[in-house]
């Protein structure tokens, strides 16, 4: 078959020529329609062996895939909102991240240790992994494509302010921009500053302000203009 599944060698259309566009293949190519790559074959071989030898069951593998799919930035946002409303929780989160996450019923697994880095009026943190694309999946879900791109990973260490500006984040010159290259066994998440004008907000409303990017450091959570005190809004 040709790449688009439009193989003209083994079927006959006597009634018309082939200068047409009738749907032999779906208009959008299936994502796995291409040839199987070496790594896919390797994964399949290892997975089959693990099941065959009784190390893992197919159900356990499916359950782990489901677990990863169930993770989203909403989980991280819940943690950040709790830290905003509860200073004692924030201290525990910064000191013993695993324990503080467990308090909220969040199990981050055993593969990596977690660290929370706090934005302050003097420091703006941003996370990357120049070696591969390490990411706190257990708190933020599957990373965005740009996070894994060579462009982001290489540029954010060389010119973080330039990259941040492309995301609309421009820390003043007097604020330290601190890049965290998660090169080893730790995964990082940014604790952004609580937006101004959210003093009486509920924890759930606060969590809704916390975006995925704000926990990577490429965004700053901002309160939308509230009817009262809208003129005081200066969060970002």
């Amino acid at each position, binding site marked *: 078959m040709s790449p688009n599944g439009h193989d003209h060698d083994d079927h006959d259309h006597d009634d018309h020529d082939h200068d047409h566009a009738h749907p032999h293949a779906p208009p959008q190519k299936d994502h796995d329609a291409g040839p199987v790559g070496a790594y896919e074959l390797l994964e399949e071989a290892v997975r089959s062996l693990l099941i065959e030898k009784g190390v893992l069951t197919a159900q356990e593998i499916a359950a782990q895939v489901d677990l990863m799919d169930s993770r989203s930035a909403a989980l991280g946002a819940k943690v950040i909102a709790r830290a905003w409303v509860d200073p004692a929780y924030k201290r525990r989160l910064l000191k013993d991240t695993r324990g503080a996450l467990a308090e909220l019923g969040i199990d981050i697994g055993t*593969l990596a240790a977690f660290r929370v880095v706090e934005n302050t009026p003097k420091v703006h943190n941003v996370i990357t992994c*120049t070696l591969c694309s390490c990411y706190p999946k257990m708190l933020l879900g599957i990373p965005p494509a740009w996070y894994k791109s060579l462009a982001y990973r290489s540029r954010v260490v060389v010119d973080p302010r330039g990259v941040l500006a492309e995301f609309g984040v421009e820390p003043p010159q007097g604020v330290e921009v601190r890049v965290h290259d998660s*090169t*080893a*066994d730790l995964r990082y998440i940014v604790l952004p500053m609580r937006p101004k004008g959210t003093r009486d907000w509920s924890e759930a409303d606060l969590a809704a302000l916390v975006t995925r990017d704000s926990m990577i450091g490429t965004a700053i959570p901002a309160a939308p203009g509230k009817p009262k005190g809208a003129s005081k809004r200066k969060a970002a």
Partner: protein
Amino acid sequence: MSVQGRRQSNKRPAARFAPGEAVRIATRPVLGHCRTPWYLRGKMGTIAQVHGTFRDPERLAYHRPGLPAQVLYKVRFKQSEVWDRYPGPAGDHLEADIYEHWLEPLT
């Protein structure tokens, strides 16, 4: 391999460096898997934090037990030290996690 394979091992060698100490990243060549980024080799930084002990990824990557385990540090670099033409202000920093066997004392 157990799930614990990549985490802290029981043996806890004492950390050679303390927070605030100045270090240089080694420049020796390496073949194969290594978690010390090229752009930091030969650069001077200071220990920001001692993370604890982790099995050596350079050995783990090749089905070795990763022992002796290595102390892992958060090392803090001035951006102006890392890049000759860093475009931002002097207060900007970069931090990376580096295993002890890549750190040289600066006295």
